[in-house]
């Protein structure tokens, strides 16, 4: 079971991992990925716009795809939207599995697909008052296509 949530407020990665594992003792590996707002030279904030009617369904579809590829792997996806400051977390992917290979692979898959298939757009606000929409990266397409 891999679940997905969408929220504006920050998340507590450790609490999410603990909740995912719960009382289970058949899991040998837990992987947590946190995406953070980088303070590239003069960046003052990042605003994430998204497509409300589609976003959560798309995250859930990505989660379902991972669950079918890695049966026995549990996971949680949390993606924030709205305005965030440098150093703040944007996205969390936590996976837990009997073996480390599956936990790592599922976490990377979820991030790679999410990067190219979830309808979010980042707008950067700079110290000089300008704003700029982040450009999609070809490396993200390549990462998503390797799975």
């Amino acid at each position, binding site marked *: 079971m891999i679940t997905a949530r969408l929220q504006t407020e920050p998340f507590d990665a450790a609490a999410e991992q603990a909740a995912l594992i719960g009382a289970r003792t058949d899991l040998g590996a837990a992987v947590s990925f946190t995406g953070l707002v980088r303070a590239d030279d003069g960046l003052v904030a990042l605003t994430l*716009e998204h497509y409300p*009617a589609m976003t959560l369904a798309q995250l859930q579809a990505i989660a379902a795809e991972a669950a079918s590829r890695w049966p026995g792997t549990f996971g949680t996806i949390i993606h924030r939207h709205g305005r965030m400051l440098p150093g703040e977390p944007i996205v969390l992917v936590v996976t837990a599995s009997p073996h480390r290979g599956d936990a790592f692979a599922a976490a990377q898959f979820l991030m790679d697909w*999410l990067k190219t298939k*979830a*309808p*979010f*757009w980042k707008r950067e606000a700079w110290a000089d008052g300008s704003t700029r*929409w982040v*450009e*999609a990266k070809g490396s993200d397409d390549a990462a998503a296509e390797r799975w």
Partner: protein
Amino acid sequence: MVTLLYFAWVREMVGTDSETLTLPAEATTVAALLDWLATRSPGHDAALADRSRIRVAVDQQFAAPDTPLHNPREIAIFPPVTGG
């Protein structure tokens, strides 16, 4: 009637986040729809000028340029996504 939604810089260039209209008969595919939309205003034209930077979802499913349109209810037009 179909609702068109625009996101990110597509929204800014078109100048609205949504519009509801009746599709013309020639809008049989995603690509044909974009061709027609580009004629609606200079903003639409500018936003859609580089089709390699445009992505489309039809009824909340990603769609390719050759995807046929069968009475869609909602079509969203936006740049390549940049979340995560």
